[in-house]
């Protein structure tokens, strides 16, 4: 029997070794060697993740597997170690990260074929997996923060992967800097936790959570949530994510859909104990999520870039996950995160396959009619669309239904808004599907004559993810449909402490049936509308030159949020910096400093004149001096 501690430690170490091997041999390795090392290391981690998962399943409930490698920082009473924790929550994350990660690695072999940065790409990808694993496996806040910033770094490196294009570099910088705004909140929250609990170890903090005042807990959880807003692209820190689509498509799938952007969900779920102690923070999570879900969905309706639609859809879906967390339905949020990882990765990879086939065309106005030419891509993409739209029995149906049921139990208003976001989702996803695959081809004849289905390294991952997008929901079949909700059972130990606090409304089965019926019915209506508009009437979105109506124009331009940020934050910052540089620094402080030097100089010049060598003047001065002194003595 191999030591379980070694197995745990190896999970992140394998991708790290992969990264080191490839990055140190960037110029030497041929693509074949790189592919084997990169994919092999992730496959190895996946195998280990499975064995740890099995270990947890056969252990008594509440078991946590831990290992401490070494003391990392210890100074003046502060202490944080390199130690890992595998419990049901992190175990599930491990499976998703390494499983989906492996598929995307395989996919990338085909997608990045022939790129001069092939080796560099895979080294970054392995490094990303390493940091992502640290993020979810760390048993203390600081180690989570390491992973948190590390994945941000990899995201930056991969968005700007094609570094000759300064637009891509701008997108990379934007992502890093926006994330750093969130990170500042997160790290301050972490410090506040240390100040209040004297430890950053999850177990210590959660055990003593109730000893802190509600105000403190609220402050901590809000600060942490600022971090989540950055990483998981919620209002107001979401604008980096659509721009992040500048990176190669597998990156969009892995980092900007399936794993990294869900770090915020993981973090809030991990801290469920703290969040349940602060109703105010939970409300904040709920409403930020809710507003983001609707807001991003409306933008997605009017986008014409295949990846941008998916990006806004991701922002919107992440919003729905936060809605679940904000309602205290932590396992529901995690459930949707898992199914979303499957179908969104599938959709991105499908989009990548389309882009690949059309030689880097991303505008859906130039697509259409690809159904016959890319049959595997089409079928799998269709499955993804059905899953995200919540058509039973695809994966998204179960997880989304659970969120909506929880929302309904909370308040009708929340339910209406969330349902609206989810209906918009099915509309824009079918719009995307129809414009891409149906109708007559709008790409140039030259492109259409070269079109061909992608190679096996691309289609096999698509197929596997399609299966998961179909069946992934079965891990959480609700009682109303005769299931036992395995996932929620599995995660119970993680959320037990909170479940005791949060009051849960239980809906009648009849209510649940009614809700499901309404939603599914309306979804089908939305699909029908999309079909009529984009297939029957063959509407194609307006070209750039066409003038749009006010509402359409606003949505098409993403509510001008980027422009607003530029005007109220970026420009003022530069203005401030320039005025510091010119007025305060050069004309202010330095003038004073030089002035002091100058005055000594001028003063000396003036005093120099007194020593003019004329004896008469000296005697005169002396006499004046004596008179003054004498008169002073007489006067006082």
């Amino acid at each position, binding site marked *: 029997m191999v030591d379980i501690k070694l197995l745990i430690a190896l999970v992140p170490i394998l991708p790290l070794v992969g990264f080191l091997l490839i990055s140190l041999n960037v110029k030497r390795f041929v693509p074949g060697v790189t592919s084997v090392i990169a994919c092999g290391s992730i496959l190895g981690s996946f195998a280990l993740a499975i064995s740890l998962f099995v270990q947890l399943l056969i252990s008594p409930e509440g078991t946590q597997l831990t290992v401490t490698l070494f003391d990392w920082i210890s100074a003046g009473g502060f202490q944080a170690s390199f130690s890992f924790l595998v419990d049901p929550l992190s175990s599930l994350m491990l499976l998703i990260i390494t499983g989906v990660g492996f598929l995307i690695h395989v996919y990338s072999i085909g997608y990045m074929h022939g790129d001069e940065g092939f080796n560099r790409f895979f080294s970054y990808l392995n490094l990303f997996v390493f940091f992502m694993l640290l993020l979810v496996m760390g048993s203390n806040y*600081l180690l989570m923060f390491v992973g948190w910033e590390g994945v941000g770094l990899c995201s930056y490196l991969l968005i700007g992967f094609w570094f000759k294009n300064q637009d891509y570099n701008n997108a990379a*910088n934007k992502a890093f800097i926006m994330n750093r705004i969130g990170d500042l909140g997160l790290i301050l929250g972490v410090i506040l936790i*240390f100040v209040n609990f004297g430890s950053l170890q999850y177990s210590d903090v959660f055990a003593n959570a109730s000893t802190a005042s509600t105000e403190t807990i609220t402050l901590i959880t809000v600060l942490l949530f600022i971090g989540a807003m950055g990483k998981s692209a919620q209002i107001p820190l979401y604008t980096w994510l659509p721009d992040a689509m500048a990176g190669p498509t597998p990156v969009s799938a892995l980092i900007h859909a399936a794993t990294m952007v869900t770090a915020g969900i993981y973090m809030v779920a991990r801290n469920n104990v703290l969040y349940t102690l602060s109703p105010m923070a939970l409300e904040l999570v709920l409403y930020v999520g809710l507003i983001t879900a609707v807001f991003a969905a409306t933008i997605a309706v009017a986008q014409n870039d295949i990846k941008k639609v998916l990006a806004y859809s991701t922002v919107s879906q992440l919003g729905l996950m936060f809605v679940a967390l904000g309602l205290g339905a932590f396992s529901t949020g995690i459930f949707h995160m898992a199914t979303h990882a499957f179908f969104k990765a599938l959709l991105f990879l499908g989009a990548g396959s389309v882009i690949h086939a059309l030689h880097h065309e991303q505008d859906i106005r130039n697509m259409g009619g690809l159904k016959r030419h890319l049959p595997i891509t089409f079928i799998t993409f269709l499955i993804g669309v059905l899953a995200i739209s919540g058509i039973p029995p695809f994966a998204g149906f179960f997880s989304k239904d659970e969120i909506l049921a929880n929302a309904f139990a909370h308040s009708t208003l929340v339910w209406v808004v969330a349902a609206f976001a989810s209906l918009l989702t099915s509309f824009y996803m079918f719009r995307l599907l129809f414009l891409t695959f149906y109708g007559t081809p709008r790409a140039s004849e030259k492109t259409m004559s070269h079109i061909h289905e992608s190679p096996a390294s691309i289609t096999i991952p698509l197929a596997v993810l399609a299966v998961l997008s179909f069946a992934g929901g079965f891990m959480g079949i609700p009682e109303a449909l005769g299931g036992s909700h395995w996932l929620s059972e599995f995660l119970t130990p993680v959320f037990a402490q909170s479940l005791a606090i949060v009051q849960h409304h239980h809906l009648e089965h009849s209510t649940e049936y009614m809700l499901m019926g309404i939603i599914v019915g309306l979804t089908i209506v939305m699909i029908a509308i999309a079909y009529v508009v984009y297939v029957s009437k063959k509407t194609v979105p307006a070209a750039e030159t066409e003038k749009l109506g006010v509402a359409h124009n606003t949505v098409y331009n993403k509510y001008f949020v980027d422009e607003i940020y530029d005007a109220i934050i970026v420009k003022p910052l530069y203005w401030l910096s320039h005025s510091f*540089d010119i007025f305060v620094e050069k004309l202010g402080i330095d003038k004073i400093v030089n002035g002091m030097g100058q005055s000594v100089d001028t003063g000396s010049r003036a005093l120099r004149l007194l020593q003019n060598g004329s004896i008469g003047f000296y005697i005169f001065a002396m006499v004046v001096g004596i008179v003054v002194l004498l008169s002073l003595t007489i006067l006082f």
Partner: protein
Amino acid sequence: MLTLLLIFFPLLASLVLLLARPQNAKMWAFVASVIELVLSLVIAFLFDKSDIAAQFAFSAPWITSMGLNLSVGIDGISLLLVLLTTVLVPFIIYSSFNNTYEKPQTFYGLILMMQMALVGVFVSLDGLLFYLFWEMALIPIYFICLIWGGESRGRITFKFFVYTLGGSLFMLVALVYLYFQTPGMHSFDIQALYQAGRALPLPEQGWIFWAMFLAFAIKMPVFPFHTWQPDTYTVAPTQGTMLLSGIMLKMGIYGLIRWLVPLVPAGVQEWGYTAIILSVIGIIYASCIAIVQKDMKRLIAYSSIAHVGLISAGLLTLNPIGMQGAMVQMISHGIIVFALFYIVDIIFQRTKTHALAELGGIKNVAPILATVFTVVMLGSVALPLTSGFVGEFLLLNSLFQYQMIVGAVAGLTIILGAIYMLRTFQKSMSGEMNTLTKTFADLTDHEKRVLYPIVVIIVLMGIYPAPLLSISEAAVNNLLSLFTESIASLK
């Protein structure tokens, strides 16, 4: 005796160097600095971390009529800074091998003299001796900048010299004042000065605080006493800039720790807040200015002001976490800033410019340089698992504990630092090549030998900082407990 050898070996070497042939000067200087490094490693090896007293101590009267003693010794705080000096100087000398300087014996001789003075500052246990070494450090660097500097060096180095010298005079006045407060046969001995200082009533401790702080603040420099720095860093020859930013500014921080906090605790208690606020203003102010700089060297100069501001603010919280953070951050900053200025020098040697607008696309032709630059940049923006993170986190931690809002404002460095560093990287390395960078050659073997070890150090310190932290731990704790005691005894 080891300590004396450590101080005076570089001096001896610099004198011998004058006899060397010009073409061999750099080699001999390098050998001498490596011997000095070995010497310091021997000391580090023999050093007892658990002992709070100064080790390898040596004390002998020197000029009795002035109360001057040749009194030196090394505790954990000193040792870290000595190591920083002895590690960086060989790197600085070796990094210069590609440059050709006129009168190399003098140039390298001055560097070694500078090293003597720096080591002297970090190990002095006598007030006047400390002052002597402090001023002695100024002379070689003044000549290095004056003789081998760039455009309008005369005016700029003169300002630098007068400004820092002027600041130091306040310190001298304060030290002499304290000297006359010592009982009996007056003495400059550090413990005697400590006792005299602590016994003073608050108003006097207050002005002594400001007199000393001014000297240290100018050296680091802390806002608003910094305006000599960007010009001097820009105009100095690369090795001069490295000495100034890598090591010399740590004299100021070291001064705060050794010659301010224990000397006038009540003064620190009273005025520390003001000093922290100035430092924090400096972080934001200098970071903002860095964002709009067009010259790489000047940009790094401003970023250095920001980083130093965080160090001085964190250490003045007098929290052991902040103090330890300051120690580790001093080492990290020294190494990173050395690497940044070296990278700028490499770019300058190939393109003859520091101007960001004229660069771009270097990553296309020099991927190794770009990768090294990336790692150093990450260290500078304090990404976890680089050396920069450990210190920055501990410092922010102490500031946040001190006062939440101060910590939050200082924390903006996380964002602003990323803005100016990423911008620098993008403008110089990314994008398409231009005519100037098209023929840019990647790192030579010589340059790799300088930068690879630096990259390894940055990452290793980030992953396993424990050895460094443990060196200064006992000394820091001792210093702070003495501080608390003397504050308590005042009440």
